[in-house]
């Protein structure tokens, strides 16, 4: 930790002398809420906005990203002693690309329908800034257990937002939930399909790209409202009187 931490995120993550459990708690809070990759860091928006037309697609891409993120964080953390600082970025990229290829080939083999639905966005995971961001900011500086957990929780936070956005867009734009879940989970999952509302004329905008931007804006706004509300509820620390006493006590 010789370099100065970047403003905001790195400060909280710096390996200060927490007890271990507390540190994992903090990582969880960061990944799911305070520093959520999709809602706060606004990283990886391209797949986030492009494929979240249905919950199934969103879940598929979220899980793929989660796997890549865990794998790359683990590997980067394990080799961090041997990677010279000058060439760390190419090394990270190759590690990430390897995992993306693994995930892509597995999806091609086992969930072919979803593989086709997600299309170019699976190989594009390699350019997802969340992954290289976590490798650089966290995994390359921390032991592998924590890096693995960080990868998991960040990926999980990302997936949650993807699924939420996918759900909103699918309900408004199609009136269903889990439409096409069998592409991801196998034939039994056709039973998961829920017809929430029966639209004669669904609002197509919601499943088109502009709908993704608008819905994402509202989700971020909602998060900010919740943050403000919570900040307002915390009692302010009492102001200490700093006036010097001149008289003797």
């Amino acid at each position: 930790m010789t370099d100065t931490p970047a403003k905001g995120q790195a400060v909280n993550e710096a390996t200060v002398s927490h007890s271990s459990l507390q540190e994992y708690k903090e990582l969880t809070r960061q990944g799911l809420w305070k520093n959520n990759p999709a809602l706060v860091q606004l990283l990886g928006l391209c797949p986030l906005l492009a494929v979240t037309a249905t919950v199934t697609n969103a879940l598929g891409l979220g899980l793929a990203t989660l796997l890549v993120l865990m794998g790359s964080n683990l590997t980067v953390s394990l080799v961090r002693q041997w990677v010279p600082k000058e060439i760390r970025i190419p090394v990270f990229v190759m590690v990430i690309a390897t995992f993306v290829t693994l995930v892509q080939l597995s999806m091609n083999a086992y969930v072919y329908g979803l593989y086709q639905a997600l299309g170019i966005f699976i190989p594009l995971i390699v350019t997802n800034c969340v992954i290289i961001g976590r490798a650089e900011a966290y995994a390359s500086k921390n032991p592998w257990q924590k890096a693995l957990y960080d990868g998991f929780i960040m990926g999980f936070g990302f997936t949650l937002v993807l699924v939420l956005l996918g759900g909103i867009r699918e309900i408004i734009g199609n009136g269903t939930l889990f439409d096409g879940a069998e592409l991801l989970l196998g034939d039994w999952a056709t039973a998961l399909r829920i017809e929430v509302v029966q639209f004669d004329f669904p609002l197509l905008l919601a499943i088109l790209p502009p709908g993704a931007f608008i819905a994402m804006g509202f989700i971020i706004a909602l998060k900010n409202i919740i943050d403000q509300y919570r900040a307002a509820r915390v009692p302010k620390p009492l102001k200490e009187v700093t006036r010097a006493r001149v008289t003797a006590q």
Partner: protein
Amino acid sequence: MSFKIAASPHAHQRRTTQQVMRWVYMALIPGLLVQSYFFGLGVWVQMLLALGTAWLSEAACMALRGRSVSQAWQDHTAVVTALLLAISIPSLAPWWIIVIGTAFSVIVVKHVYGGVGQNLFNPAMAGYVLLLISFPVQMTAWPVPQELALYSISLSDTAQLIFTGFSNAGYNLEQLRLGIDGVTMATPLDSLRTDLAQALTVSEATNKAMFSSALGGIGWAWLNLAFLLGGLVLIKVRVISWHIPAGMLLGLLVPALFMSWFYPDQSVGPLLHALSGATMLGAFFIATDPVTAATSNRGRLYFGLLIGLLVFIIRTWGGYPDAVAFAVLLANMVVPVIDKYTQPIAYGHGGKL
């Protein structure tokens, strides 16, 4: 004797936003009359629906933002948004179309950005685009001009159609859109577009009943002339400046003129462009929105030119028959750049003399 030193601007009109907006909707009246003459009374029902929705959404937003709800209606900007949207959509569209569109215009396009004077995009046109790409079927179902229609539609039919989808006699909108020749009629621009795509020449494509008595299509030509009249009044009373309408018409008509010189059989002439679709409504009432247009006069001219050119491009080569809404939104995005490069130089602050 004391001299007060006041900050500029020193010459200004004593006109409130409400008065400006009142002029705008007064100037819409000729167009409204013509529209209800040719296309039935649906537009008035749509207007009532739009006004109601706009008022409710405006009040709800003001309440949520902690502002005075009673002031919500005072500046009348929402009235103009609602009216423009009601005029732009097909007058027999189902009631939920206008409700969704107006609510989106006021809540998302206007208030999410900060309310009156803060919005980036023209609210009415953003609402229109939302509707057009979400509900293409309903949004292209323009009623047939009354004199060409197989069935005439009374006021109670109109209300029935808008609220239930069926007229008193049980016809639905598709049946009522049959022309005298028993074929569902498209709007003139739509029909031209389809015919030109099928390699018909313009003279063949305009050899139809809907083009018989007026260039630009029965009803549409008069509608455009009525909006032109209203627009000229607005320029006369100096509610809008001539730059944007002139720019837009130039940007649309000059390329159209060149195209019809070089490809007289395959391209729509300038007069047809000027008198069909939403050309005049767009040029005088929509593009001139003071909030989302460029600020300086030179900038307004460029802004108008850009809109006109985009309308021409989309009408000629694009996927939609008319393009005013898309063109206005695209030009709205360019406004900050236009404003940056057309900012007039203040006296004494550089620039060439």
